[in-house]
Structures are given as C-alpha cells and as structure tokens.
C-alpha cells in the first residue's frame, strides 16, 4: 500500500515532463529529491515516459557524482576536499569524521543517521576547512570542533527520534 501511494506521488511530481528534449537529468534530480536516491522503479518509470532505454539512464546516473543508487542517511555529510580546504587540513577533518562515525567515505552509518561523502569545492574557501551537513555549512574546523558538531547532530536526532521529517537543521 505504502509503495503504491509513493508511486502515485512520484508520478504526480513527474507530470511536468512535456516531452522536451534534454529533460533526463532534471527528471533524475526530481526523483532523487523525492526519494533521497534513485530507486530502480524510478529508472523504470523514467524510461517509460521518455522512451530512453534503462541502460542509457543507468549510464547517465553513474556518470554524475550527484546521483546515488542507494538510500542515504538522514544527515548527509560532505567534507570539502577542494584546494583551499586541502591545504588547510581537510584530510584530518575527513579522518576525524570517519573515526567518529566509524564509516568511510561513501558509507552510511548502521543507524541510518549519517552518510559521508566528499565534495570537490563548495566555494567557502575563506572558511576552510569546511564540511556541509545537509544544507548547512560548518567552517574553520579543527578535529575537536568537528567531533563536537557531529555529537550535537546525534543528540538532536535522539531528541527528535519520533519525528520523521528530514529538514535542513542547523546546530
């Protein structure tokens, strides 16, 4: 039942497809925005409405780093590894996050709370080293401060454990 409801909702979001060429990437982006990743049935559906073979869609998904084929954690952490962050100690920040969460880049914690990724540059170079957690940027980090930030997110998640809504929340 739940799946059917979601599928319906999903179709509704995609009705905007007007047959214009070049809409594959926006469709994938809206699917990912909706599900948090691109599930198999979304690929199926997009192939159906656009007529693009599933294999081609898969090729596009795997080409772009934005697209994900598996579910993400509630908080998506993106450690900036741009040049400015790199020379300001991004490696140690990444290692600290890995150590604190017990996962490596690309993984999601077992409790589904955190997913760890890297990003090439988010353009906040003067605040290097920087991480983004969902849509919030945290800058001028040290190993100690990044641990504190992660623990705050954990605490907040524990407090709002009943709430399902995932929104952009600052610490």
């Amino acid at each position: 039942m739940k799946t059917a409801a979601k599928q319906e909702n999903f179709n509704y979001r995609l009705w905007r497809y007007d047959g214009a060429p070049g809409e594959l990437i926006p469709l994938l982006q809206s699917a990912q925005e909706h599900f948090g990743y691109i599930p198999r049935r979304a690929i199926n559906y997009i192939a159906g409405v656009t007529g693009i073979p599933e294999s081609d869609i898969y090729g596009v998904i795997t080409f772009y780093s934005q697209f994900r084929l598996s579910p993400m954690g509630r908080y998506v952490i993106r450690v900036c590894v741009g040049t400015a962050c790199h020379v300001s100690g991004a490696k140690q920040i990444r290692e600290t996050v890995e150590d604190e969460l017990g996962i490596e880049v690309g993984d999601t914690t077992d409790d589904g709370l955190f997913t760890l990724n890297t990003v090439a540059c988010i353009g906040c170079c003067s605040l290097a080293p920087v991480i983004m957690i969902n849509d919030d940027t945290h800058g001028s980090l040290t190993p100690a401060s990044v641990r504190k930030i992660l623990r705050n997110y954990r605490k907040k998640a524990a407090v709002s454990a009943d709430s399902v809504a995932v929104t952009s929340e600052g610490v």
Partner: protein
Amino acid sequence: MKKIVVGMGTCGLSAGAQATYDRLRELAEANSDVCMLTRTGCIGMCYREPLIEIREGDSRVFYGGVNPESAEEIFSKHVLCNEIIDDDNLVYVCGPDGNTSGSECAFLDLQERIVLRNCGTIDPESIKDYEDAGGYQGLRKALTEMTPSEIIQTIKDSGLRGRGGAGFPTGLKWSFAAANEGEQKYVVCNADEGDPGAFMDRSVLEGDPHAILEGMIICARAIGATFGYIYCRAEYPLAIHRLEIAISEARERGYLGTNIIGSGFDFDLKIKQGAGAFVCGEETALFASIEGERGMPRIRPPFPAEKGLWQKPTNNNNVETFANVPWIICNGAGAFTAFGTEKSPGTKVFALAGKVVHGGLAEVPIGTTIEDLVFKIGGGIKEGKKFKAVQMGGPSGGCIPAEMKNTPVDFESIPATGAIMGSGGMVVMDEDICMVEIARFFLDFTQKESCGKCTFCRIGTLRMLEILERLTRGEGEPEDIEKLEQLSIQIKEASLCGLGQTAPNPVQTTIRYYLDEYKAHIYDQKCPAGECQALVEFYIIPDKCVGCTLCAKNCPVDAISGKVKEVHVINIEACVNCGKCITSCNFGAVITR
C-alpha cells in the same frame, strides 16, 4: 534614514549571517522610523564575515565578525546614536567626502570593481535595486540605439577576453555565432564553476544575478539567438535560488519573453542544474549535459558557433564575461580599455584562498602583480609564515613560486610560467605545503573527473597518480621524474578536451620549480615541507598537551606514553604514522615535523 545591509552570500551565511540578520530585523522593525534593513551578496571580505554595513547618504561603515550580540551593540550605538564603534569589529569606513579608513582599507581601495560593481551593494533579490544602480540600461541602449553588428563591434573594441580561463576574444566569438545562419541559435552561460578553490562566479550569481541575465540578453540580440541556458552547478543552491527570482522578476518587467521592452526582440532562458561532473565545464561536454546525456566532450570542429547545442549555432561564455557586457555597453569600449594591459584590457576577479590572511574576492585591473594581490590585498601569509607559491588555474593550472611574485597577472605572462590564468582561483601556499603532495592532490582530482573518452587522459593520469602516490610514501624510484615528464607530454597531445590537455600542468610546474623536493622524496625519503604523512615525525607539543590520554587510548600500536594530566610523548620507533593522535587530540597539541 540609515540603511543596514547584511552580507548574505554563502560565505556570510556559513559564518552565521542569518542569526545576525534575524536579530537586526527585530531591532529594525521596532525602530522603522530611523532605519531599514536589507541584505546583499558577498562584498569580497569573506574572511571577516558576517559583515554588516551601515549606510547613510554617501557614508558607508562596515563591521566584520558581527554576531547577534555585537549587532545589538552596533545597533544601539551606531544606528540609534550615530556613534561609530572603533573596535576590532570595525573594518572599513568611507566618509561622505570619499576618504577611507579602517583596517581593511587596502583590501577594498586597491580594487577596481566592474564585474563586482553591485556585489555587496544591492539586494540581489530585488530587480528595483538593480535598476536603481543603473541596471538594464545597457540592455536598453543595445536594443533601442544599436544594431547587432554595432554591439559586436563595441565588444570587439573593448578587447574583452573570455574570463573562463582560455581568454578567447569575446567579440570575435560572438561574430562567429552571428555569421552562422540558423533559425534557432542559443546563448549559453557556463556557471559550472568547478575549479576547487574558485568562487568568483558563485559570488556574482548570488550577489548580482541580473547582470548575468542582462549580459546574456545583449549577447542574444547581437548573435540573433532567441533562447538561452544557464548551466549552474547543483552545489550552488543559493545561486540557483537567486537566479530563479531574477528570471521571474525580469520576465515580469518585460526584459525577458516576447517583444522585450517594446523592441520587437524575443528572448527567454532557462536554468539547467549540473549534476556534479567537472568535465562539464568544457563547453561541448556542457552541451551534452544540457541535452541530457553523459557529459562527454565532442570533437571540434565543428565549433559551437556553427554546431553547438542540439547542433545549432551556439555562443557560450562564462558568468564573469557576461557580467562585464552591460558595463561595456553602458560606458563604452574606451572606458573598459582604460583598465588592464594593452592585450588584456579590463579587470579580473580573483578568489584568494589558502594560507592568505584575507581570503576573499578581489577584482583588480589585469596586469596587477602576484605580489600586490597576495600581500597588499591579501594581507600576506597566515601566522607570519613564509610565502612559497601560488596555485593558479585550479587542476588545469600550475604553481608559481614565490620568487616569481613580480609576474603580472595577464593572459600572456601567466601561461609563460606554465600555469594558466584559469577562471581566477588563487590558492596561496606557505612553507608547510609539499609540492609533490599538491601535484598528487590535483592528479587525484583530474583522474577521478576524467570522463574516460580519451585513453591517455583516462589511463595516463592514473599512471601519473600512482607514481605520485608512491613518491609521497617515500617509495619513489630515480626514473619516476622522467616518466612523469613523458606521460605529461603524451597526455597533453592525445587528449581531446581541455581537461586532459591541461591535467599534467600541476605536475609539470612543480617539477620545473621544485625539482629538489621531488629528489628529496625519491633519494632521501624525506618530505622537506613536513607534510607527507609517511615521511614525517609525529610530535606532541609539551606546552599544549594537557594529559587527557585520548591520543594514547586511540594509538593502535601503543606508541604514546604518559600519565593522566601529564605531558604525553610519542615513541618514534614504534609509531606507524597513522595520524590517529592528531585527529583525536582536542587541543591541537599533536603536529608533524
């Protein structure tokens, strides 16, 4: 009436501008008879965010590092009682007579702002603010007083060169697209600012989105295009948000759509979000991405002016180039050539980052020296360390050593050093940065971002990366340098697009200027800068260690000894250089040397 302006670009928001703004809004609403509150984009002093400005008539006073508490003080003293608070927060004062003072004078006064003319001044979410600042006057002039060929001639006369990095003359590019007949032509704005360490375009998109729209509409008129795309990276959500607002406001006011300002000219545009691929900054890959395909470059010729997006004549310029256009049309080509050098007129925006004191955005006349940028505007090197090099042009660029700091930054002198102008990222490096490691870092980036179409770019960069990784581990071999040099030449010659053709630049320039460092890694297994983790010694600074025992607990080989509340010591013989002690220390007491 005082105007309180809060810097709300990504840099400001990341530093906490929202909380400052919220507090000021409460205060301003309660005192709406004496002041009004507004927001603006990035003024460039990213290092002092959150920034607020108190404006009254021609006088402007800037405060930096303003949190809600200090905002309250500024409000009660400055806004309500006209008392300028002369403390650490005060960064810049511009009196009604034009005299300037304050700690950041040098940063702003040495700049010439054409592209950034409105950034940090107007509210980017208000078309009225843009119009009041002279916005859309260039478009009016272009549509009502000039023919398309006159527009192109003006741009040619201005000598404007593409600001995306290659420096191709913009007017010439437009004339190619104009000369090609076609029912449908396109204008594309490349806002896929992918170079790590570069954020000029982000600031313009966030701070002055209408300038880009205006530039694009003028270009469309000049080449005869009726539709355009802005290809913006998805990592810039605020930029996309503000562009969307700007587009809908421009449509409402008749600057976009049919019969623009009654001239009979039709043009509209759409934002396309990138999906995270560096190679899409290359124009033919960008077109493929807009068409919904994998962003892989195509063979040129045919050039985009002939067969670009959907095989139609297309003109593609980057954000900064378009932002220059309305100013040139308004002020004339002569006003533009008054800045810069003979071959590279105008200004260029640079993003200063890395180990420089004033990390931020600066727009200077082309031909300004590296020294002026790093020391006069950038305020020198952090923590009084030694200036070692500046990296220009991102992963496609190179490292220019400190000895060459008198090099003027222009489209001739920079390529002569082996680096490239690039889009304007300038990452400053101090003595602690290892040049072999930096070369590895960039190769790691380009290797991952290679689309895989050309064999040498796909596999050649991987071989180079493997060699560089070995060097940073102290496992280099004497013939490695020659191998790197050979591969560099082969990759450059055998790659289709700019990504592969420039990927070896960081390696070539570091070998050229820092051969000694490469040799130290290979022959002595030493990293002179003390950065390569496998080749350094870990050390606990006694003065900083509080004896919390965390490092000892986290050490996987029990190489750290010390009692609670006593200074800990690392046993170098047992240490495996894993770095766990650094990441576990809450006091910054563990360093490498």
